[in-house]
């Protein structure tokens, strides 16, 4: 537990309640060695002598294969950067693909991109691993058997001809299509059929927002929210920093208002109402626990208050009792009113009447045209649930002759799977474009695998008027075919995807830009990755006040409400085959490799549940159920249980043998089981929308346990109280202050800690004149989204260890995101702290290394020479920040194709050595060499660490501290700057900027933690 001034921080409930004996051994961590010391020495001696002898021979012969014809511009050993668009989700962030010797290796954010502004989320970073996946289909399938394209094309064309003659119904289902060319190709393909329809189905739909705008503005669109112009952000459930619609864009915009300075101590005010504990909720200035069914209630009260304030009549309908303290609503309404035109209300409810209320409030506040743009709307979610539900009925009735599905797994992501599957059987032609055999593809007559996004040409238009291009970065690895080409073939054309794309751009995009020759326009678009077009604005109708009515929702006390959410790492089932993402600890719960049922601490106590206890969650209506382990989640609403979607994906039993295989190793998934369970069966369908937060459920403890591999207590910076020196039991790890305090004193929040003096351990005989690398992390901007973690994993060849090794605290991530809670469940606050090697000047690890494998460099880095390391692990034991990782195994990829993802600039560490964050020393050296080559000195900003480059919140600054003009130098002089465990005089080169919450000064509430 950590305490700053008057606030107590804790990482887990056991810690808060003091029931955790910090020295208590976890049953999974310890274990006696299986053989004796004598036997060990015998074996070791034998191995050593053999190893010495075998070293005397010649090294094995290695061949080096040059190109036959070297492509122009390619330099062996150098990365080439291509501008592209991320296809991880429909948000379509700007992407820079680093291609090294023909292999796309490193995904980075595109700094010039107007939406993502250089950020890229964990999913975008993890794209290359899914590219080099031998489980992807390499050829089409016909009735589940491998086939060739000619036969498949012929069979599909034949059946289509039959359907055309009979006038049968063709249904083409896709997830949101932001690509204008793909949309045009689908439209062209469906043309000429009597009864053909393109249906957009999102695994996580925002259909209600679009439907609500149709009611209030007469146009079915998703607004483009501009959070950088919002002084007050009120979000109901919308996890906009983590998973909702376009998280990287929203984080990039949100962070611009989260940097108070001495001169301008101002920042946005962010309130979150939610049932579960989301990433966004944890970053809010004020978070209220509110059941999703009661969003309408609070919104109605807000609407009524604001109507009065605006001197208008409140909308029709009656007001019930407010779910939130009336005084708080009054205050919030007041804040919103004062921020008219610079505020925004967001909501993820799938209830159209609730969304209509949201529109009304945004309209009343004059936010339309300012923070909420519907004239140039977003196209990132276009799902139309009413049409999806109609399709389901048609399928069940056997009215569909041909069904095409692309970009989504139809049966995995919808409730009532069995009935839909039976309906699909009745269709004459079922085609899937899935890149692997997913649940729907297994039912399809033909699977026509599309390229991986890194292999294909495509475009995207995330916001009307912003069109971006994706370009292939390598030859397709298998015999896949672009969906554009497949559709063209079946329409009787033989164009390539490139031709189709160019033709569409020539016809549709060229007229929308200032006139220039097409080739010049195209070349610039390919170079830049995106273009802005003069697409005419949508015509928006007058606001329809009569559509709005206040809602009087009675809160139900007798049943639990299920809230289905998507996880930051996986969003939906498409990324379930990516082990990097599966092993990414969830930013809030810190659980890897599983989904689970989140329940609040008091509910858990009532039902006598604890972490890992299996519970059955059964819908009160349909009877659908799942059985999953419990996770007791602080901040969870007492009547709300949350389960993540996107799990239980077909084929994830492949992870049985991921990670090291050894005597005591246990599989990541039991043979025949999948990673997590699919909870899509519990999605409720009401009023024409798929509702993720509507089902009443019953919770039953069924006995039995499944432990969750959580990293929450691993590598803690705290000392067990019973061994801590007197007066140092509590460490000021997280430092926070409030905006009002900060305005008064920019150093507010500095703890009054006892410093152990400035005695220097080493003689100060180094001139410390050249570069001195340092890093500053702004805790006020960091949302904990964990993009940096995957960026680091991708850049530094960090292995995946599997669930069992995570149980043993042996995860290898070089950055971990420490998450601390404070406050109580009704007003829970969360602090995230990225923790990587602090590169201390007085590094405790260096003094204990008997092999001099970890030493200090001239430039202030704490370096680790892997080939010197003998694996004593003294350094890890002595590291106060617990950032060193030991290679207990070799951690080879169990899929050899995935070796292609390794970055050749970074050594793959062998078994038995210690590793840790090197501050991307390979990038530092590269930057220095490049500068020296041109006879220049390193310019601030030229060298970026992997974590810094892709941080969506731009929270990480890295550079040369000796350069007085550098950003990092200035950041070190920021009054909010503090270094961790400064009192011990480690002199770390990494500093943090104190978090500032926009709320009243806090006082320790309650006394439940000593």
């Amino acid at each position, binding site marked *: 537990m950590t305490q700053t001034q008057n606030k107590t921080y804790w990482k887990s409930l056991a810690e808060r309640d003091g029931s955790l004996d910090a020295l208590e051994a976890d049953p999974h961590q310890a274990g006696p060695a299986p053989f004796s010391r004598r036997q060990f020495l*015998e074996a070791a001696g*034998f191995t050593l*002598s*053999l190893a*010495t*002898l*075998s*070293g*005397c*021979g*010649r*090294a094995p*012969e*290695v*061949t*080096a*294969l*040059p*190109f*036959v*014809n*070297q492509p122009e511009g390619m*330099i*062996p*050993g*150098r990365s080439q950067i291509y501008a592209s668009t991320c296809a991880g989700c429909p948000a379509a962030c700007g992407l820079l693909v680093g291609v090294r010797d023909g292999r796309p290796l490193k995904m980075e954010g595109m700094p010039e991109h107007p939406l993502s502004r250089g950020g890229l989320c964990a999913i975008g970073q993890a794209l290359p691993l899914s590219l080099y996946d031998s489980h992807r289909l390499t050829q089409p399938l016909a009735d589940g058997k491998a086939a060739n394209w000619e036969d498949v094309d012929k069979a599909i064309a034949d059946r289509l001809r039959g359907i055309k003659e009979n006038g049968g119904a063709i249904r083409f289902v896709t997830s949101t299509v932001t690509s204008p060319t793909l949309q045009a190709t689908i439209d062209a393909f469906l043309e000429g059929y009597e009864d053909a329809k393109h249906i957009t189905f999102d695994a996580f739909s925002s259909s209600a927002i679009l439907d609500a705008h149709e009611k209030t503005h007469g146009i079915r669109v998703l607004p483009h929210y501009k959070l950088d112009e919002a002084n007050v952000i009120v979000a109901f459930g919308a996890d906009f920093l983590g998973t909702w619609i376009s998280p990287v864009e929203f984080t990039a915009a949100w962070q611009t208002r989260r940097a108070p300075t001495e001169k301008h101590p101002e920042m946005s005010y962010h309130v979150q109402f939610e049932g579960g504990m989301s990433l966004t909720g944890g970053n809010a200035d004020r978070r209220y626990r509110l059941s999703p069914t009661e969003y309408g209630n609070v919104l109605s009260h807000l609407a009524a208050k604001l109507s009065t304030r605006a001197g208008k009549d409140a909308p029709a309908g009656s007001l019930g009792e407010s779910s939130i303290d009336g005084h708080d609503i009054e205050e919030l309404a007041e804040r919103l009113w004062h921020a008219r035109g610079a505020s925004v209300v967001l909501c993820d409810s799938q209830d159209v009447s609730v969304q209509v209320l949201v529109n009304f409030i945004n309209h009343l506040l004059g936010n339309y045209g300012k923070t909420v743009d519907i004239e140039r709307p977003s196209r990132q979610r276009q799902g139309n649930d009413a049409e999806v539900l109609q399709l389901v009925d048609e399928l069940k009735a056997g009215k569909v002759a041909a069904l095409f599905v692309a970009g989504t797994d139809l049966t995995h992501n919808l409730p009532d799977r069995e009935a839909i599957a039976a309906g699909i059987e009745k269709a004459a032609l079922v085609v899937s474009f899935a890149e692997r055999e997913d649940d729907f593809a297994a039912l399809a007559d033909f699977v026509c695998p599309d390229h991986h996004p890194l292999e294909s040409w495509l475009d995207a238009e995330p916001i009307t008027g912003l069109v971006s291009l994706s370009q292939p970065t390598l030859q397709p690895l298998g015999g896949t075919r672009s969906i554009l080409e497949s559709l063209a073939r079946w329409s009787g054309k033989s164009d390539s995807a490139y031709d189709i794309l160019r033709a569409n751009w020539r016809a549709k995009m060229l007229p929308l830009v200032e006139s220039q020759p097409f080739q010049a326009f195209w070349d610039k678009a390919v170079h830049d990755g995106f273009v802005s077009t003069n697409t005419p604005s949508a015509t928006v109708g007058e606001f329809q006040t009569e559509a709005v009515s206040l809602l009087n929702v009675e809160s139900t006390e007798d049943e639990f409400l299920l809230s289905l959410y998507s996880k930051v790492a996986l969003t939906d089932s498409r990324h379930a085959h990516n082990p990097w993402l599966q092993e990414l600890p969830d930013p809030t719960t810190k659980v890897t490799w599983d989904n689970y049922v989140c329940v609040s601490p008091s509910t858990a106590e009532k039902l006598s549940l604890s972490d890992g206890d299996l519970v059955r969650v059964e819908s009160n209506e349909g009877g659908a159920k799942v059985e999953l382990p419990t996770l007791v989640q602080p901040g969870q609403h007492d009547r709300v249980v949350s389960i993540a979607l996107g799990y239980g994906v077909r084929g994830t039993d492949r992870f049985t043998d991921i990670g090291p295989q050894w005597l005591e190793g246990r599989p990541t998934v039991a043979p025949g089981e999948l990673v997590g369970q699919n909870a899509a069966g519990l999605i409720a369908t009401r009023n024409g929308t798929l509702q993720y937060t509507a089902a009443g459920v019953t919770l039953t403890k069924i006995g039995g346990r499944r432990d969750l591999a959580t990293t929450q207590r691993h590598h803690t910076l705290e000392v067990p109280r019973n061994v801590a020196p007197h007066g140092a039991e509590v460490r000021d790890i997280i430092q926070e202050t409030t905006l009002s305090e900060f305005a008064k004193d920019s150093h507010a929040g500095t703890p009054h800690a006892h410093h152990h003096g400035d005695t220097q351990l080493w003689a100060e005989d180094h001139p410390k004149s050249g570069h001195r690398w340092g890093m500053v992390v702004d805790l006020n901007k960091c949302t904990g989204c964990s993009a940096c973690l995957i960026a680091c994993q991708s850049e530094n060849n960090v292995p995946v260890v599997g669930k069992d090794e995570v149980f043993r605290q042996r995860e290898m991530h070089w950055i971990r995101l420490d998450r601390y809670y404070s406050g109580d469940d009704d007003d829970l606050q969360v602090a995230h702290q990225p923790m990587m090697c602090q590169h201390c000047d007085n590094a405790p690890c260096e003094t204990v290394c008997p092999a001099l494998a970890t*030493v200090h*460099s*001239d*430039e202030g*880095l704490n*370096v680790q*020479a*892997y*080939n*010197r390391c003998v694996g004593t692990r003294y350094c890890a034991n002595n590291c106060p920040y617990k950032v060193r990782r030991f290679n207990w195994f070799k951690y080879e990829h169990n899929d050899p194709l995935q070796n292609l993802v390794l970055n050749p*600039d*970074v*050594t*793959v560490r062998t078994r038995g050595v210690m590793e840790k964050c*090197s501050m991307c*020393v*390979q990038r530092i*050296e590269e930057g220095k*060499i*490049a500068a*020296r*080559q041109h006879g220049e000195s390193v310019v601030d900003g030229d060298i970026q660490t992997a974590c810094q480059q892709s941080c969506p919140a731009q929270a990480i600054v890295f550079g040369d501290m000796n350069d007085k003009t550098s950003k990092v130098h200035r950041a070190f002089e920021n009054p909010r700057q503090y270094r961790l465990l400064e009192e011990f005089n480690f002199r770390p080169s990494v500093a943090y900027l104190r978090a500032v919450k926009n709320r009243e000064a806090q006082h320790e509430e309650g006394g439940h933690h000593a």
Partner: protein
Amino acid sequence: MQQRVITVVLLIGLCFGLITLVAGMSSWRLPDNEQGYAPKQPIEYSHRLHAGELGIDCMFCHTAADKSRHAGIPSTDVCMKCHKVVTSSFDVLQDEMNKADEEKRKPKQIVSEELRKLYDALALDETLQPKEGATAESIPWVRVHNLPDHVHFDHRAHVAAGVTCQKCHGPVESMQRMEQFESLTMGWCVNCHQESTKTGINGKAVDAKTDCAVCHY
């Protein structure tokens, strides 16, 4: 019983070790020191002829030495810059020309044995026309200078500092078959870094660091 098994295993191990040791005695050196390694290459390419006699600059073929960490093994099309015309050694070609002149006929296309292998790799026939049904393949050159994976050597930095190729690769221009001239051990690297920092390279002051992280990452 167990004792006996262990003894037998140890004995077998010892025999195996001894055999390996004796076999390796002919070229005794410390583990991982490959000095003098001169493997047979798929084509008997002569640096002595090209770099020495003909005086072709190293970077004419190893184009990336000043651009990348790898100097680069030339792609096969680089050979064809000259060997489109030069299909055999000068003497043989000259003889054939003279003979053809005497016999009043067109000179025959003469392809030397080694260059035959080059054209085979490029899927070209006797007359240097593409062979039907054959595809060009990379020539599997055997790597001579092979640093361990835990060392990062960057050609670019050394070329920019003015270190000559010969400093590490030895008198390549006099080598018929390429061999590893220097030991390329860490001590050898560090010595040069320290010397260069003291004395400079070609009169230019350099700061060749000896921090671990300069090479090991």
